[in-house]
């Protein structure tokens, strides 16, 4: 655990990039679509996938 924290502290940009990369992969696979057509579906994070991409690009 200490090694992991040290690695994150030593490479903050790389770590944040990796976290966002994993988030992007997960959101591509599991996040709800931006436009939910089916009735009764609650999608609180429906813009998750595009937002992750924007953060990654920025």
């Amino acid at each position, binding site marked *: 655990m200490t090694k992991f924290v040290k690695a994150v502290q030593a490479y903050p940009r790389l770590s944040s990039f990796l976290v966002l990369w994993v988030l992007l992969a997960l959101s591509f696979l599991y996040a709800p*679509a*931006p*436009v939910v*057509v089916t009735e009764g*579906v609650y999608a609180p994070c429906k813009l998750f996938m595009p937002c992750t991409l924007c953060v990654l690009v920025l």
Partner: protein
Amino acid sequence: MSLFLCGVSAMQRQFDDTMAKVPVRELRAAYIAVEQEREYVDEVRVWFWRWRPQWRVRVEERLPALEAAEARLADLVAQRDAIMAEARQVVGIWSEYAVEEARESFWSSVEAGKVRVLLSMTCSRSRHHFPTCHSIQGVAKRATFYDAFFSMFQMRRDESIGSFLLGLLVKFVFNLTFGLLLMLVAFLVSLVGFIYTWGPGVLSGTLFFLVAGLGATAAVTGIIALGTSWWSLRLVTLDTQLTRVT
């Protein structure tokens, strides 16, 4: 919020209504008719039927019915594709239908190993004729088999069977990685056609390609990273066990 929900509900109703226009029964009947007519023609397609007048006459008698059935099927398929394109444009490419279809396409390319290369370029004409389908594991296994076959001739006399098997395992992991990357490229190519069938604008289509393409790349690199670390652990364990035995 209620206005948005009303809009969404109307959108879904319009989508369902449009999809309900697909002539499913007629399509099924047309498929069966084509199969029956083809079997009927195949009955008289004996060896060298072109050069045997009695058989050639029989084939020529039965061919028009087959051609008519095929034409009817092609018409119905075109009709279905037009209806589906209309329905897709109602909900748009950012809808859950499109996203789900893109994910299914991705999973089918990764899990079942089937990638529909240039999907939309063919699906507008015939959805049931998918071009080349490759299997990731198939690619990896085949490549590893050839590696194993040729490495038998290159095996040194002093090389142990353990190191030979380890080398083979490393090659398999390498081939699997290569296969996954190959499938990713094929998925990205098919994505262009997929977006085209949903008919979005240039900006929306480009954004969807970026999002889905980068998402798929992230997922594949994640799978490769996880797979490689798992196999590396297995290799280290196997190596330790083999060293103990020898």
